[in-house]
């Protein structure tokens, strides 16, 4: 029987197997940030052990950083302390840190790919569930807890049971205005937030083959929202072209040698997956969520489903929506375009293209938060900044920002926010905030109209 992409990468990284127990998996790259690493560093200190392979660790500050006035000292004492702790820990352990103000700073899942740190065939972990993003390159990438961060610090390995495999194929031509985020939200709405639990997903089919790396990252990013540890897409020319020439990418002859290796990673034709799902691209439309988990999504043109279940009703009560109603026409005062899901240059191009020559609605607060310093620079270089400013949008500095509202970027209580981020959990964007997940296009349209519109009517 043939092997899947996942099998090939996994098997190549198994150091040993414990009889009747987990396997020891070697980790090529370990990404860290300020929130989930301090307790792991403490653990090393407590046990008096040193970091095993510091050169394989890369750090950034992103979760807890301000998105305005980054040159000034951080006001919040706890946040400031957490960042100071990261700086100290990295210095003491010889870890490369792209801290606040550094030209490479940004959201960890945006900077590692753009610096060429993420490459096909790798194993890559981070104390953050959206590490699944990096699977877009055909790497095994997944989020870990802080105890596991300490394990990788100590040994560059993890003890893991091999997950089961799932393939999600989407074939056909996507309709105009249907973006990678819509594909992800559509699949999660169909399968549910627990469908992927215990599995690693391979996204296959011509929809993903024709996607840019930015789009693939959006899709793989959201695989955790269906419960999967990670998602992967087989590397191809799109991948190699993206990686080539980036700061940490292999150079010249060694790059060609790597490409030859990466070419062999594709799933064999006779490989068998534990579970398979297939969807038709032409059925997908611009999506939006109406509830408090990412599986509660509908096509914008559809109405909220009718389900008689306490958890469903609790969720609608929190959102202030009724069963069977449409979201079209609902007034929204906040729009957030950012997060590790949708804060890459392509996302801002889509938004700018829609916004160009228009004005945001008077009731709207539109926050644009680039994923990295490099994306911020690119926004300026391409002239998108002036489009946004003229339209009345607020372009901020890079970070995780209102995706999880750890910093000052909180959506006020009771307010709706159409957000390009990944989670619409209760209070995720601030206590009492109500999140509606959507693509950058839907978010931009909401900002212009001041309410949710059926974007499909403008597209057709």
């Amino acid at each position, binding site marked *: 029987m043939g092997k899947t992409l996942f099998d090939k990468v996994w098997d190549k*990284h198994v*150091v*040993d197997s*414990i009889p009747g*127990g*987990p396997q*020891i998996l*070697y980790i090529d790259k370990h990404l860290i940030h300020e*929130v*989930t690493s*301090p*307790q792991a560093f*403490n*653990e090393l200190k407590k046990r008096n052990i040193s970091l*095993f392979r510091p050169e394989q660790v890369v750090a950034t500050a992103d*979760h*807890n950083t301000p998105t305005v006035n980054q040159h000034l000292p951080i006001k*919040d004492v*706890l946040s400031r*302390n*957490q960042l100071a702790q990261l700086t100290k820990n990295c210095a003491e352990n010889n870890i490369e840190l792209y801290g606040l103000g550094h030209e490479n700073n940004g959201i960890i899942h945006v900077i590692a790919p753009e610096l060429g740190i993420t490459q096909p065939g790798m194993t890559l972990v981070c*104390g*953050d*569930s959206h590490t699944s993003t990096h699977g877009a390159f055909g790497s095994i990438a997944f*989020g*870990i*807890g*802080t*105890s*596991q961060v300490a*394990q990788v610090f*100590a*040994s*560059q*390995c*993890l*003890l893991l*049971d091999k*997950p089961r495999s799932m393939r999600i194929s989407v074939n056909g031509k996507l309709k105009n205005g249907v973006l990678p985020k819509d594909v992800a939200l559509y699949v999660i709405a169909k399968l549910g*937030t*627990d469908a992927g*639990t*215990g599995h690693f997903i391979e996204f296959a089919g011509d929809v993903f083959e024709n996607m840019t790396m930015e789009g693939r990252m959006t899709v793989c990013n959201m695989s955790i929202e269906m*419960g999967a540890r990670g998602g992967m897409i087989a590397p191809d020319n799109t991948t190699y072209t993206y990686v080539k020439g980036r700061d940490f990418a292999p150079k010249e002859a060694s790059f060609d040698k790597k490409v030859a290796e990466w070419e062999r990673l594709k799933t064999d034709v006779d490989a068998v997956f534990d579970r398979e799902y297939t969807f038709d691209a032409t059925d997908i439309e611009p999506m939006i969520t109406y509830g408090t*988990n990412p599986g509660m999504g509908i096509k914008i043109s559809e109405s909220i489903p009718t389900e008689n*279940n*306490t*958890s469903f009703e*609790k969720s609608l009560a929190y959102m202030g929506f009724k069963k069977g109603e449409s979201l079209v026409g609902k007034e929204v005062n906040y729009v957030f375009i950012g997060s590790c899901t949708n804060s890459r240059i392509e996302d801002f191009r889509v938004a700018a293209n829609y916004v160009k020559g228009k004005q945001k609605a008077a009731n709207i607060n539109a926050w644009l938060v680039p994923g990295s310093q490099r994306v911020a620079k690119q926004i300026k270089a391409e002239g998108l900044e002036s489009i946004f400013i003229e339209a009345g949008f607020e372009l901020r500095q890079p970070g995780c920002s209102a995706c*999880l*509202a*750890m910093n000052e970027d909180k959506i006020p*209580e009771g307010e709706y926010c159409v957000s390009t981020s990944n*989670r619409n*959990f*209760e*209070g*995720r964007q601030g*206590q*009492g905030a109500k999140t509606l997940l959507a693509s950058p296009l839907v978010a931009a349209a909401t900002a212009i109209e001041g309410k949710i519109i059926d974007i499909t009517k403008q597209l057709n």
Partner: protein
Amino acid sequence: MEKFTIVQSKAIPLAIENIDTDQIIPARFLKATDRQGFGNNVFRDWRFDKEGALNVGFVLNDDKYSGEILITGHNFGCGSSREHAAWAIGDYGFKVVVSSFFADIFKGNALNNGLLPVEVSPAFLKQLLTSVTNAPDSEIRVNLAAQTITLLSTGTSESFEINSYKKTCLLHGYDDIDYLLNQEEKIEEFEKQNC
């Protein structure tokens, strides 16, 4: 890590599905640099209103219910990888979480912190929730060595699965770092061959 053997206790029924880690511990409480004290803020926005007043309708605030066992709905712990969720539940005083389904990362984090996730059938979960809700003094016994969970009032019991390696770790109080540190030679050999 503390050794885990048997827990016999009353339980708290939290019959909500898809409880995510943002509910267990909201992100604004993740600014600490140590592991202690997260129990104060477990389920913070369900336990308290925005002004900090106790939400008396929430089950953790109901004096009828107490115990070291939390019984919850399907897909518990979905969302973020924050281990703070497992720390918060443990710090609050729970030793066992029972559900019909756990999210992967939460389950792993719980096991790494001596908090036992017990996965039961949907039917048994319903029975546990009903019994405990109606008779808050009902005790539940979780025996890790035997891999059984028993509702003592009726004697109804179900066995649960746990990875044999993780079971050994919990019974003896070992953790993965101890194991991995002993594998250094093998890991270095792997690096020589592959890196």
